[in-house]
């Protein structure tokens, strides 16, 4: 259990101070995969760097397990850090070491014997898909390859807590998926707690249990991923959720409106209620209308389909009204009128 109270970090600047993290309170359960999202500059990196005290907090306390991180002396902090893996936004690889030796580094620090170290390193190289490049130096790697070395390095010592700062943002989807699967796997098998900064909502959706949204150094929204996705309250959150839910970015909508000028277009919000299954075929049967799916995204959640569809409803004016009224009144699907014919 990670427990954060009143955490605050102020950067002294010449002109004015910058409060990168602002009186943050947060509890993260053991074994949880905790996502952190937020705009660029929101304070996400600073937040995770505070967790292992790479950045000294200006105020507040951090407890990981029963260790009060903020109160540890140097030696204890060092030991605590050996159980906290970290993946850096800028990789921070040692250019003087090969891929293999970079990954072995945390093992050397933890005093793992040589044979075991080698075994583990080879295993990790396989896992992150760098076989064949183990003797390359970082300067000879592509961006994504460097990132993967950073990931392998962070995992090498079987940490209890893993801090990931944009761990997959330099990776293609295939590799991203492989890495995420790996993380989930370790999380399940070893109960690894992961705190994961990302701006890719599909990463959050795919592996996180909890998500927190940061804005201006504060957590403005937090909860179960599904809950936050279903009922985003803050406008930041809505913007992020829209990304994964594929709900029309504004210009897409405009395009649709111009393509289907003079026709009825609605957006149906499915809110994860299984009662709404087969809504479209039900409507088609019950009312004399054709429903044309223009665009949208539906995701399956534990509680049923969630997402939204932009549809065009064709048919008799009366029937159309009835159909819409039926959806609005009899189901939990919300109807948003995007464009009416008249």
């Amino acid at each position, binding site marked *: 259990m990670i427990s954060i109270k009143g955490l605050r970090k102020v950067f002294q600047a010449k002109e004015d101070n910058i409060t990168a993290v602002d009186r943050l309170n947060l509890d993260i359960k053991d074994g949880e995969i905790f996502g952190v999202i937020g705009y660029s500059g929101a304070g996400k990196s600073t937040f995770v760097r505070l967790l292992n005290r790479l950045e000294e907090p200006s105020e507040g306390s951090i407890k990981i397990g029963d260790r009060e991180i903020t109160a540890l002396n140097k030696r204890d902090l060092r030991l*605590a*850090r050996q159980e*906290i893996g970290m993946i*850096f936004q800028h990789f921070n690889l*040692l250019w003087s070491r090969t891929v293999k030796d970079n990954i072995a580094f945390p093992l050397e*620090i933890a005093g793992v014997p040589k044979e075991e170290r080698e075994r583990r390193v080879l295993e990790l190289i396989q896992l992150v898909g760098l076989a064949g490049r183990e003797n390359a130096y970082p*300067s000879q790697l592509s961006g994504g390859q460097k990132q993967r070395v950073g990931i392998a390095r962070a995992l090498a010592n079987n940490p209890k807590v893993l801090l990931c700062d944009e761990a997959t943002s330099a990776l293609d989807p295939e590799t991203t998926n492989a890495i995420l699967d790996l993380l989930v796997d370790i999380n399940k098998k070893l109960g690894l707690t992961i705190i994961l900064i990302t701006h890719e909502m599909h990463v959050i959706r795919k592996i996180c249990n909890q998500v927190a949204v940061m804005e201006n150094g504060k957590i403005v929204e937090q909860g179960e991923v599904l809950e936050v996705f279903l009922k985003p309250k803050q406008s930041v959150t809505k913007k992020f959720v829209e990304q994964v839910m594929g709900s029309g970015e504004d210009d897409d909508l405009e395009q649709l409106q111009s393509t289907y000028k003079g026709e009825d277009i609605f957006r149906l919000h499915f809110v994860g209620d299984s009662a709404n299954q087969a809504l479209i075929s039900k409507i088609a049967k019950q009312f004399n209308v054709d429903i044309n799916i223009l665009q949208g995204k539906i995701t399956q959640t534990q509680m049923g389909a969630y997402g939204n569809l932009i549809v065009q409803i064709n048919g008799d004016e009366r029937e159309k009204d009835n159909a819409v009224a039926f959806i609005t009144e009899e189901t939990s699907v919300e109807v948003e009128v995007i464009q009416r014919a008249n």
Partner: protein
Amino acid sequence: MLTNLFPNLKVEDLIEATYETFYMTIIALAGTFILGILLGLLLYLTMKGGLWENRVLNWIVASFVNVFRAIPFIILILLLFPFTDFLVGTIRGPNAALPALIIGAAPFYGRLVEIALKEIDKGVIEAAQAMGAKTRTIIFRVLLPESMPALISGLTVTAIALIGYTAMAGVIGAGGLGNYAHYFGFMRRDFDVVFVCTVVIVIIVFIFQFIGDIISNKLDKR
């Protein structure tokens, strides 16, 4: 042929002087390397924002370094007489020159080490810290390897400065090429000796530079 061109040159003496220069330079270089790295690390670690931030210690080390860099070499040799006598058992000859050479060059190299360490990307140090590395581990596995090309280049520069110093070590009978050139060449106005000695010194410098460059380039994987 040599004797025709350089009538005043005694080849055995030249060889002996060359040997002495090599001997002093190499041994002093080893000592300078160790002491200089030590001083440089101390300067770096104790500086503001360093791993062992410590104003007092930093001030002490900096003072030590500056004082010994500042003292003219001849006076340094004098000051070190008791120490040298105690350590080497004599205050004369190449071995007696070593303490003064090392103590004269190490503070200088220490500063070069400090400069090299300051150039290391803060990120990799942070990465090592985040892994829970001891400062010792950070020193030996991050700071030194990551700055090694610059450390070696700096050592080359120091080696060549040391060759210059050995010329002055002549005053206590340490011999060497510089001394040979000065006393047997310059003082006797036998400029052929000066010339040959200078050429040999230049060759030695080239050798050091060449080796230093090769090692430094080999180590640089950026």
